[in-house]
């Protein structure tokens, strides 16, 4: 009986999220097609969706699997730069095909990166894990800073730390130029494509969470010893959540990259990881709806605050603190205290928050 109740409330929640995304899409697509939208907001639609994907995918690791990851932007950059290479290598192919293949390959490469990084990282717990993910995020950024990629008719050339070592013929084009990043990316990302990706990712995450595997992941989060004694392998399930989350960040990165004509590794630093974590914490850890809304609001907010000119980021910080305090109100129980405290509480107490 209890199980049926749980399941139905979970699927209700899932449909609420689909509803939010569909309404969001219809409203803005209508505004765009009727021209009733400021160019400021129109230019932000695709980044908003990318950050929403980042937030829900990080929520899978932070909320569902219960591991604090501070290197999520690293996976985004892997997907982003992979997408740049793929879309350049595809040359004259149709834009939608390029976009889809870029997203898939970007997600795949990010998943491989997530898997490899997961091997050492997931052997750790709590704060230690957080610090090591932070380190890996920085490592990815620094590797990309040294990476040179060129394309000529013989194929793709890679070099490390030295663009002259690419060995291309003179007609070849340097696609990724170390710290200068990628320039001249053709802007092929579209708002509908980004929303479709967000929908697919929500469907995958919510079905994963409500599946046998999802329950296993949450059981391990809530009480590792009990779960292990039931025969669940913590490493396997944590790795699954971590890799899936990394691949989703990679897909988001691919869309993000193909929305700007330039991309530098510096963009995906610690600050971006923390920004995404702020979306997750503000929206409520483990709460996908919250992640979606928080990402949307917090990406748009700095732009709405431009009239404060020099004091803009100060006002942004104050708004952030106020929102944190309000959503963390006693009456809205189940919100986080501080995120470290929250984790300990969760792991110690066992059981999902209401």
């Amino acid at each position, binding site marked *: 009986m209890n199980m049926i109740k749980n399941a139905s409330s979970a699927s209700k*929640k899932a449909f609420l999220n689909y509803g939010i995304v569909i309404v969001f899409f219809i409203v803005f697509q209508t*505004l765009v097609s009727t021209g009733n939208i400021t160019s400021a907001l129109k*230019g932000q639609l695709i980044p908003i969706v990318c950050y929403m994907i980042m937030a829900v995918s990080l929520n899978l690791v932070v909320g569902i699997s219960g591991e604090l990851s501070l290197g999520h932007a690293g996976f985004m950059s892997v997907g982003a730069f992979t997408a740049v290479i793929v879309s350049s290598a595809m040359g004259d192919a149709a834009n939608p095909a390029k976009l889809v293949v870029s997203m898939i390959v970007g997600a795949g490469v990010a998943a491989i990166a997530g898997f490899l990084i997961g091997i050492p990282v997931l052997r750790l717990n709590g704060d230690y894990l957080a610090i090591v993910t932070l380190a890996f995020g920085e490592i990815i950024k620094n590797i990309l800073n040294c990476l040179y990629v060129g394309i000529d008719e013989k194929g793709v050339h890679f070099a490390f730390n030295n663009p002259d070592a690419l060995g291309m013929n003179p007609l070849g084009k340097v696609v990724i130029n170390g710290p200068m990043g990628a*320039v001249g990316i053709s802007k092929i990302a579209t708002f509908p494509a980004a929303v479709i990706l967000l929908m697919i990712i929500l469907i995958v995450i919510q079905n994963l969470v409500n599946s046998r595997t999802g329950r296993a992941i949450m059981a391990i989060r809530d009480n590792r010893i009990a779960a292990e004694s039931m025969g669940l392998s913590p490493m396997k399930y944590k790795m699954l959540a971590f890799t899936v989350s990394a691949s989703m960040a990679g897909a988001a990165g691919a869309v993000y990259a193909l929305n700007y004509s*330039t991309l530098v590794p510096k963009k995906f630093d610690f600050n971006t990881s923390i920004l995404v974590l702020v979306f997750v914490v503000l929206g409520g850890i483990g709460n996908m709806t919250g992640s979606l*809304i928080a990402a949307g609001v917090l990406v748009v907010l*700095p732009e709405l605050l*431009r009239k404060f000119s*020099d004091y803009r980021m100060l006002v942004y910080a104050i708004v952030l603190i106020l929102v944190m305090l309000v959503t963390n109100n006693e009456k*809205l129980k189940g919100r986080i205290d501080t995120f470290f405290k929250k984790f300990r509480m969760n792991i110690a107490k066992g059981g999902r928050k209401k």
Partner: protein
Amino acid sequence: MKKKLLSLIMTGALVMAMTACGGNGNAAGGNGGSGSTGNGELTGTLKLGVIGPLTGGAAIYGNAVANGTQIAVDEINARGTGFTIELNPQDDEHDAEKSVNAYHQLQDWGVQAIAGTVTTTPCIAVSAEANSDRVFMLTPSASATSVTEGKDNVFQLCFADPNQGSASAQYIADNNLATKVAVIYNNADAYSTGIYQTFKAKAADLGLEIVSETTFTDDTTDFSVQVGDAQSNGAELVFLPIYYTPASLILQQAASAGYSPKFFGVDGMDGILTIEGFDTSLAEGVMLLTPFSADATDDLTANFVKSYNDKYGEVPSQFAADGYDCAYAITAALEFYAAKNGGLDVTGMTAEQLCDILIKVFTDPDFSVDGVTGLGMRWTANGEVNKDPKAVVIKNGVYVGM
């Protein structure tokens, strides 16, 4: 249940907020230009946007450009010729994403031309947008070639990176400053890496021997390895294609290591004398390639330095000078067009119309501008500026032309 209610409320609020700000769109554009006034005069009000890092780590450059542009605009508006400029500086935090947002904000404001963006990476992103929207851009200081490449509407007021790197190598070779050169550059920075690559290529042609190449990243504060490597390889000159904050640390650490080669910098080094707490005697003898020196005695520079100092209480850097020249270059271009076509009223003209006019004028071989960063500046069709590089040396705590 409460949670669900909350999320519903928040969604509602979000949608309301977003649609609310979507309401007043497309105020710009409108009913076309009023065109010629018949008497060869330039009239009307130009809406000029500036995009640059007004906050964050690169704020010093963005603010210098914004201040410099403001002074030029104040002077132009005070002439009382019927032509005025309305200036709107927007912050981009030296981030491509924020910069594109800032650009869209300016579009909503009805921008007609842009003096920006200040830093290179954001400029590449914004110039791609401006190219497809047909908005004219004159960047004061974004120096990479990819800023202008393939975009007919984007022009540079500063030297492009390859010119700086190769001009530096040329200068060192021509004046026999050294034969053994060390380079310390920031390999996490597009500007620094770009100059280094062209310097290296040119140095090889000219027979300069690069005996030491060392790198650092943005948060490096200890340069003992880099300085030590240059010292042990016997470099007579250290080329520093970097910004002045790390350069000041390198000078300090070289001095404490008892190593005193010649130091040669590029325009990013400009401003080293204004760092608080920096012992300027350490910078004695440092040479740098820059288009602007505040101690120049010509009227143009003297006036600019005086009004900048009066208004902002400091000596303007090269970035301020670039911003100042940008506003004047755009005004001069419009006046040039007005004189040739029987007048021009810019009020109400679309960005697209102005873009066509400005491209025509900037690529006109007869059009040249005398500014504080160079006399007789002309532009090539691919958007690069032609002017003579100047080298200055620091003597007794001031920049002195060489």
